[in-house]
């Protein structure tokens, strides 16, 4: 939570502040380290678990009595589901195979979206995916899935052969194969996980920076007190901006997952 983060920030800042001018120290990655009590559990894990609970309960409730003529709740649920089902899965994978990947992609999208928005939702104020363990877990799931279906569809040899596009001159094929191999097995998972983590991490850092700076200015003299107003304003702008980025990152993660699955399923390049 932000307050915890702030206290953590101020506790690290306080010793410097006691030293006089330049006492403010910007928030460090330590603000993401939030163990609950003395256990191995972190706040992110708690909120992640709560997000799964919320999503499960709400989505089951809204889709339980799904009918031909939708209720208002079902209609909203369908709109949310169709964003992942039609807007991502069907468009990327194609109408033949998309349906068996729709649950996975929809799970990814809803889980990432809610946890990202936790970063600006008042009781939480902490994006779960700002801790790299979570993006890595999701990325590994996607990684295993798209390689698994690729091997299943093309066979081990066929899958590797499938990575190199047809119609290339013979001498360039080994080089392209190496590049594609790196893309499939290193670049894609790495970027997928880091993109989500980096955006959440940096966004949260920025908001904490502005809020803690504004709070610090309030402890100083009048000029700084005035300066705290645009600082808090900037924090508010960042929150709005983050809302967009958080949605976008959830969308991009799901979209790229669908794209990788589609690439592994494709008959040719």
């Amino acid at each position, binding site marked *: 939570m932000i307050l915890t983060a702030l206290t953590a920030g101020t506790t690290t800042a306080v010793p410097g502040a006691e030293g006089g001018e330049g006492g403010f120290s910007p928030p460090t990655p330590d603000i993401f380290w939030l163990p609950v009590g003395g256990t191995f559990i972190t706040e992110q894990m708690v909120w992640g678990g709560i997000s799964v609970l919320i999503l499960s309960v709400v989505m089951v409730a809204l889709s*339980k009595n799904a009918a031909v003529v939708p209720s208002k709740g079902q209609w909203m649920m369908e709109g949310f589901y169709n964003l992942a089902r039609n807007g991502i899965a069907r468009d990327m994978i194609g109408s033949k195979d998309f349906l068996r990947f729709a649950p996975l992609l929809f799970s990814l999208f809803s889980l990432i979206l809610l946890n990202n928005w936790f970063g600006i939702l008042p009781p939480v104020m902490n994006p779960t995916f700002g801790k790299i363990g979570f993006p890595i*877990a999701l990325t590994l799931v996607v990684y295993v899935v798209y390689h698994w279906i690729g091997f299943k569809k093309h066979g081990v040899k066929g899958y590797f052969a499938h990575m190199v596009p047809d119609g290339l001159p013979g001498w360039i094929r080994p080089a392209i194969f190496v590049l594609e191999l790196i893309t499939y097995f290193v670049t894609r998972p790495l970027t997928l996980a880091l993109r989500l983590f980096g955006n959440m991490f940096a966004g949260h850092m920025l908001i904490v920076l502005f809020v803690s700076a504004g709070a610090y200015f309030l402890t100083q003299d009048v000029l700084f007190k005035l300066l705290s107003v645009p600082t808090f304003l900037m924090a508010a702008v960042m929150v709005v901006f983050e809302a967009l980025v958080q949605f976008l990152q959830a969308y991009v993660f799901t979209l790229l997952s669908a794209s990788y699955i589609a690439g592994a399923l494709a008959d040719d390049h």
Partner: protein
Amino acid sequence: MQFTDTASSVVSLAASEGPKMPLIPYIPELIFGFVMIGILYLVVSKKVVPNLEKAYEERRAAIEGGMEQAEEAQAQAQAALQQYEAQLHEARTEANAIREEARAEGASIVAEMRDKAQAEANRITESASRQIEAERQQALVSLRSEVGTMSTTLASRIVGESLEDEVRQKGIIDRFLADLESGTVRPEKVSAEATVAAPASSAGATEQGQLDLGTDGTAGRDA
């Protein structure tokens, strides 16, 4: 080797006071990430998506079913229209056939009636002519006997004697009539005989009447 050392030191660091390096995953969080997506995927794939997909399928079926029903109704209407038109056509043909038949029948009736009338007229004409012939014969016969009687009576009165002998009498009359028919008897001769035998006027009258009867009889036969 060095890497594993670093990794183990990082993990031990993470376990003790949390990772200072944000790019090193905190292992409980990594594991819990799998748990989160696993549970959510189970719920979504077992409870949420099937329900929604079922609703989509039902909706699609309902829409297509409605369209099918509309098409069916249209086809039925089309079939009814065709049937109606066929019936109308049939009825028209039938009416024409009946009209033709009636016309033919009427013509045949007229022809038949004409034939019948013709036959009737012929029959009537024939029977009338036969009757006339019969009556003429009858008249001829009765006239012949009457003339015979009258002429005998007349002759007997003139001669003054009754020709009592039947055979002789008959023979005389027949011979006279035969002579009359064959034309051997000349009126002059008869009139001369008559003038000799009887007053001229009466003899002339008798002769005239016989000749008249003859012409009359021929005329009647001709008619």
